[in-house]
Structure formats: structure tokens, C-alpha cells
């Protein structure tokens, strides 16, 4: 595999984490425009841990997930009371607030004679754990995809379990779910925290892949794309968001056919799909049909 293939595959893997995070909330019935904020929380947390305090990446990633879950929980407390469009707006506002917080953080330590750490809009350089520990790009790719497969396996397991069924009940009709005995508010907070942790894990890996992060990495573009990936790919299975990422980054970006006009093609694709397949390519009907064929 050449460098470029490795980097495209790594990018697909990284962005799948936040796409899955958006997907998790959508199937629970909430459209969040703010998952990029938790992706950023993960990136900054893990970056600070490895680059400034010498924490190994695996531990830093767990810390990032904790921070992402905590941030998502706190954002969820007031916003999950809101419905539909209001929830979407509130999550977007929360993510933008987080981004501005990143712009305001100047927290550096002298390491080997060099100031290391978040420096506001100047970004955060030198998150070099991967290089210092001799992890080759292929090795990092394997790490990203290994974790991603673990997450997808967890999703598939969950979807077959009662937990997954409850998520779908919430997503389809929270009031009916409440009548059947689901503790709706508590459940949604748990889902929001899990989605935050998942986005943060992606962010932690991204920071170490790129070695440099800055607040603008975590703006609305990332949030909108992660939602779009889940919606294009389909809401019937956890493979949906992966398919969405694959279509955008793998096919559109990777092929370079549309060059600078790719965003227009992508926007058109989203619009067309939302009209003809409002729940994505791999929607529930397709998944039920596939299950019957395979059974």
C-alpha cells in the first residue's frame, strides 16, 4: 500500500468514529449538530496527556473518552429537554462554545526546551507520540481500524440486544416508548454520553495522526458531515455511517474526479438521497430484507 492509500484509509477510519457517534444519537431520535465539539474535547485531552505529560496513547485515549462522555453529559442535561430543531440548534451552539473555549486556552509546558500545548488560535503542535514511539503509518492504520471494528462489533451486538431495541423505540416514538415503561430522559442522557465518548475517541486518534490540531478543525463542517454520513449510509445498521464515509471520502474524494467541485456533488447527493431514501441507503427495510434473505 502506498502512503496515499494508507492516509485515505486512515482518514476514513478516523471520521467513521464521529459518523457513528452521530448515528447513535439519530437512532435514539436526536439530530445533533454538535458532535464535533466532543471530537475536539477528545483531541485536546489526549494531546495534552501524551505531548505534555508523557501518558501513553492508549491511556490517553481512555481519558479522552471520559472527558468526551462528561462533556456530552453536561451538554445533554439542558439540551435533551428540547425537541427536533431546537435540540439541533442547541447542540450546534454548545459545540461552537467548545470551539471558542479551545481558542481561549493557552496552556503550555516547556518540553525539551520548547513550549508544548494548546496555544489558542495558533493551535496545538507537537502531538508526536506516534512518531516518538516508532509507530509506522500502517501500524497506526491498523490501530484505527482495529478500534473501529471493535466499536462496530459492539454496535452490532447492541443492535441485537434489548438496548438496541430500546434505542430504536426512543428514536421512532419517545412518547410511546415512555408508555411502555422506558425511562426516556435517563436513557437519552446515557446515549448522549456514549456518543460523546465515541466522538472523543475519534478525536484522540485524529490528534495523533495529524500531530497538530487547532480549534477550526472542530467547526460545524465536521458536524454536518458526520450527520450527512449517517443519513446517506443509512439508519438501519451501524454499517450505514461507514458506507456514508466510504462514499464521500473513498469514492468522491479518493477518485478526485470532481476535484474542487466535490462539495457541490456531495451536497446534491445528500439532497437527492434525503428525498428518495430519507433513512439512507441501508435503511431498516433493506436491513430487515437482508436479514430475511440471510436467515
Amino acid at each position, binding site marked *: 500500500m502506498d502512503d496515499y492509500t494508507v492516509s485515505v484509509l486512515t482518514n476514513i477510519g478516523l471520521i467513521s468514529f464521529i459518523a457513528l457517534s452521530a448515528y447513535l444519537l439519530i437512532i435514539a431520535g436526536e439530530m445533533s449538530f454538535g458532535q464535533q465539539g466532543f471530537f475536539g474535547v477528545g483531541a485536546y485531552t489526549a494531546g495534552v496527556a501524551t505531548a505534555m505529560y508523557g501518558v501513553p496513547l492508549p491511556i490517553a485515549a481512555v481519558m479522552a473518552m471520559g472527558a468526551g462522555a462528561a462533556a456530552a453529559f453536561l451538554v445533554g442535561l439542558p439540551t435533551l429537554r428540547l425537541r427536533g430543531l431546537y435540540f439541533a440548534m442547541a447542540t450546534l451552539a454548545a459545540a461552537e462554545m467548545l470551539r471558542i473555549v479551545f481558542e481561549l486556552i493557552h496552556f503550555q509546558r516547556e518540553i525539551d526546551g520548547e513550549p508544548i500545548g494548546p496555544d489558542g488560535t495558533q493551535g496545538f503542535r507537537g502531538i508526536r507520540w506516534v512518531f516518538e514511539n516508532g509507530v509506522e503509518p500502517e501500524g497506526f492504520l491498523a490501530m484505527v481500524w482495529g478500534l473501529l471494528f471493535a466499536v462496530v462489533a459492539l454496535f452490532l451486538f447492541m443492535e441485537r440486544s*434489548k438496548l438496541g*431495541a*430500546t434505542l*430504536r*423505540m426512543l428514536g*421512532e*416514538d419517545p*412518547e*410511546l*416508548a*415512555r*408508555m*411502555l*415503561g*422506558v*425511562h426516556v430522559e435517563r436513557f437519552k442522557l446515557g446515549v448522549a454520553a456514549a456518543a460523546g465518548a465515541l466522538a472523543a475517541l475519534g478525536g484522540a486518534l485524529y490528534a495523533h495522526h495529524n500531530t497538530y490540531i487547532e480549534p477550526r478543525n472542530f467547526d460545524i463542517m465536521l458536524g454536518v458531515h458526520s450527520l450527512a454520513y449517517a443519513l446517506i449510509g443509512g439508519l438501519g445498521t451501524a454499517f450505514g455511517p461507514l458506507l456514508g464515509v466510504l462514499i464521500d471520502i473513498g469514492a468522491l474524494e479518493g477518485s478526485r474526479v470532481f476535484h474542487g467541485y466535490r462539495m457541490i456533488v456531495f451536497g446534491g447527493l445528500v439532497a437527492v438521497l434525503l428525498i428518495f431514501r430519507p*433513512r439512507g441507503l441501508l*435503511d*431498516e*427495510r433493506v436491513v*430487515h430484507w437482508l*436479514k*430475511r434473505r440471510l436467515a
Partner: protein
Amino acid sequence: MSALLEIRQLVTAYGKIEALKGVTLDVEQGSITCLLGPNGAGKTTLMMTVAGILRPKSGSIRLAGEEITGRPPHAIVAGGIALVPENRLVFPNMSVLENLQAGAYQRRDREIEADIGKLFERFPRLKERSGQNAGTLSGGEQQMLAVARALMSRPKLLLMDEPSLGLAPLVVEEIFRIIVQLHQDGVSIFLVEQNAHMALKVAQHFYLMEQGKVTFSGTPGALAEDEVIRRAYLGSAKA
């Protein structure tokens, strides 16, 4: 012996407007009790309050002697009340089977599969469609599924809010056959209906509700059917 469900002086308000103005009624163990009344009388509000979706302002609700007033919905379901809501029957993008499993949300026992088997025997049409998305079922089938799903929680009391709403006459008859069958199997049913004619055929006791108050209580036959129908649809003359 006290009734299975005892409602005393129940008041539920939306803001300052009281939809229930002190409702008192009983549902006896093993009976079909029917609540009739015109639109806006507060029938659905009463159902939602009993199910815990709405919190009453005052009054009391007791299930089998136990005070359940103001408990959250999940505690009410755990207490043994299942609601078949009006207009909100099924999870459309979930399969029939998944809808049934959803009804057993709070159960942890091992007999869930066996119960689904029994319900499929009772409702063979649902069995044929078990893998299909519930949204693709006909109105009558969806009502059937909603009833079956409510039974999955093994309730002491089944609340049914307008089960005949929007269904063709033949389908309505089928739904009422199911209600009678459930009654024969020993299920206690509290039924809200606008179809007074059908409801009076199956109920052992009925209440008339107008403008947030119970205005009549009796057995079918205690009031001439045309009188019941007139008041159930139009409200009493003085209203």
C-alpha cells in the same frame, strides 16, 4: 372487596385549564368497564393520567389497593397497567416481532418468547407478518399489534383508548371480538370509546363523561341506548 382500579376526585389541568374536574370511578377486577363521552370530555386525559404520562393536580389513583398517584410511567407499567394509546399504535420502522418485544420492555423473565408464541396463536395475521415493518400493516392489524404488545407486559389492567377509531365497521367488529375474548381469558379492561353501540354490547359497567366530570354510572341497559348515544356524542342538553 375493593375494585382493581379506584379513581377518586382526580383533577388534571393543562396550565390553568382543568381537563378533569374531580373524576371518581372504579374498574372491577375481571370486568370490561367502558368510558363514553363526547370529544373534549377529558377521556384521553384520564387515560394519560392513569398511565402516568400526565401528573394529576389532586385526587388519587389506586391499583389493587396500592396508591399510584403521580408515579412516573415506567413505575406505572411496572405496577401492572398497560396502555393501548389512541392514534399512536406502533413503532412503524420496527418489525412486528420487535414491536411485541418492545411491549415486554420491563420484563426480565424467560417466558417472553413463549408469550410471543401464544400471542401469535391468538393473532395468526401478526405471525404471518412478524418480520415486516409494522408501518406496512393495515389499520386493523396495527390495532391488533398494539393490543398484543400491551399484553406482552402481562398487565393487571389493560387501558384502551378508542380502539375503533378510524377503522372500517368489519374491522371494528373484529377488534371487539378480541376484546371479548381477552375478557373471557380474565383480563381486566378499561375502555374509552366513542362507538357507544359496540361498547355497550361488551361492557359490564359504563360511565358517561362530560366536560371533565362523570355524569352517569351504571350497567348497560340502565339508560336507554339512544340516550347514551346522544350524550356520548353531543353531551347532555344542559351542557
